[in-house]
């Protein structure tokens, strides 16, 4: 019963969030300076030409009427057609989604596999005086260097010198998995630098926080080995902030993928949306942002469920006494 209440509550609030996002994005794309007509027809078009184009796409109607039409179509699963390529947006997004998803999954995997052990290790090995300066510098650098700078640098270095990995080309996963991985590894690496740094730092802070807990002192006092203490008492208790972070970062990485896909010329969702924004392709931008919002919402529900499973005090069913 309680679980049902929780799920229906979450579904309602998710729907409300999506609706809010759809209003915002619908308004935002129309508020961008340089409308669709100007972008397509160029600076020398006459007002009559612009008006005719706008009428053809229904852009002359009041915004709320346009919104109503669009919302009704979206609710029916129809995201409309790209105003530039005349292709259905839904199908195009679906075809490009696997590339972005692969990129994100690789980057998240790298953050978990490298960031978490790095954080645990630096926390457990930390000395009371000094130390950790190198780690802080590295993670600070990893957090603050933007993806387009690092990405451009990597593209330059790998295209200028033959280092064994190609940039600027892409092979579908289904055709040749090994070649696909070879083309994805650099963009995934660039994308993951940020999340590895944040994950390592958050893990370190979380573990440091758990290390001072009395139950860790108690375990040390029982003569448990450091490895046993990390495995049994630290990992799970430090996991809550890290899982929360990785969840939000996953959604955030989709945003980072925009830039990385663009820099590395990968035909993913990100580059599609970047191009669409440049050309004021309203239908594509709206669908893309709605998709991103949907991913955020799903990730947040997943985080809540996972955190509840990790820490019995925070669960959906918490409060029930034994």
């Amino acid at each position: 019963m309680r679980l049902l209440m929780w799920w229906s509550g979450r579904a309602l609030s998710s729907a409300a969030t999506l609706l809010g996002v759809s209003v915002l994005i619908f308004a935002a794309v129309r508020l961008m300076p340089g409308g669709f007509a100007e972008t397509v027809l160029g600076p020398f078009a006459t007002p009559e030409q612009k008006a005719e184009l706008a009428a053809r796409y229904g852009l002359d109607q009041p915004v709320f009427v346009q919104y109503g039409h669009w919302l009704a179509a979206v609710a029916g699963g129809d995201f409309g057609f790209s105003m530039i390529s005349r292709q259905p947006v839904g199908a195009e997004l679906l075809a490009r989604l696997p590339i972005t998803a692969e990129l994100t999954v690789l980057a998240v995997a790298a953050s978990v596999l490298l960031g978490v052990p790095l954080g645990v290790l630096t926390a457990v090995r930390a000395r009371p005086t000094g130390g950790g300066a190198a780690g802080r510098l590295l993670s600070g650098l990893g957090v603050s260097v933007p993806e387009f700078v690092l990405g451009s640098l990597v593209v330059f270095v790998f295209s200028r010198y033959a280092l064994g990995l190609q940039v600027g080309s892409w092979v579908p996963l289904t055709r040749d998995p090994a070649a696909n991985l070879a083309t994805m590894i650099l963009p995934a690496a660039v994308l993951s630098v940020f999340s590895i740094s944040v994950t390592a730092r958050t893990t370190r802070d979380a573990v440091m926080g758990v290390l001072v807990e009395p139950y860790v002192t108690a375990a040390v006092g029982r003569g448990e080995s450091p490895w046993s203490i990390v495995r049994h008492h630290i990992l799970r208790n430090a996991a809550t902030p890290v899982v929360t972070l990785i969840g939000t970062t996953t959604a955030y990485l989709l945003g980072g993928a925009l830039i990385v896909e663009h820099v590395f010329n990968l035909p993913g969702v990100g580059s599609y949306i970047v191009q669409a924004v440049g050309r004021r392709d309203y239908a594509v931008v709206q669908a893309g942002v709605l998709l991103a919002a949907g991913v955020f919402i799903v990730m947040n529900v997943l985080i809540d469920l996972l955190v509840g499973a990790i820490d019995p005090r925070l669960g959906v069913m918490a409060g029930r006494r034994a």
Partner: protein
Amino acid sequence: MSLLSVRNLVIDYARTRALDGAGLEVAQGESVGVVGESGSGKSTLGSAVGRLLPRAARRTEGEVLVAGEPVFDLPAARLRHLRRKHLGFVFQDPIGSLDPTMRVGDQLRLVLGRGGDVRFHLGRVRLDDPRVLRAYPHQLSGGMAQRVAIAMAMATSPDLLVADEPTAALDSQVREEVSDVIFTLAAEAGTSILWLSHDLPAVARRCDRVAVMYGGRVVESGPAAQVLGHPAHPYTAALARSAPAAAAHGVRLEPVPGRPPVLTGPSPGCAFAPRCAFAEDRCAHERPAPVRVREQDVLCHKAIELEDRLTAPIEPAPIEPAPIEPAPIEPAPIEPAPNTTEVTA
């Protein structure tokens, strides 16, 4: 040879000195109560026994021998072995000292290893409800959680159990039961107890010997009845007179005047001198050496002179019902923030 031997132990935190040459002996099978105000170094002494001090703590001088092994000079693996085999700890915060994300049964099994009888060990601390095994620590009451912690600490039948105010966070009705469990189990296993406490009457009733701490030193130690009934150190006398639970009706409680010291380095003389009614010149400049008064070891220049002149109201006779925890005598100095315990040690 004593089981535990603390010799001239000096422990420093960044700016404060927690122990200023503490000395203590505990024999096999004996129970020793350590009493003193907050900030007197009780907890530091208890943690030092298992080298469980916060990372910021430094051993400046002295040594701790457990079963003849120098705790502070052992390599990590030998230290772990020593903790597993000889030592058990029970802490003040019962729920906090259990892993919040692990079921009680799993935590016990982790300690007992494969083939350990979890039910039996819970039964020994008088927890017979099998639901406890499936519960998480936050679902237990403080008294239940402390029994679980005791079961875990006593599962290996250690030679020495260090109990750092194990009942201070509990309701007064539960307090006696939990204390009973600890002392009964320890007596069965032949385990020595180092009982750190504010509760003078309880210590008087349960412990064989008492060590009184002040300013990071053990200023008086000896048989419990002697130390608390006929103190030989002016501080012990003052402490005993200020314990509310011990006072008979109509007897005025006398707070110890002044406040406990916060040391930043070695105390030049007797740390209690500024608050002591009997202090003379040399007390402020000369560190007192141990003297023997009756059956007590005392750190006081005037101990011999004051023999039989100090009085205290604490009688070792049982006091019923359970006593109330005495309030701290004076605002306690802020203890150094606990830092990360060294897991690698």
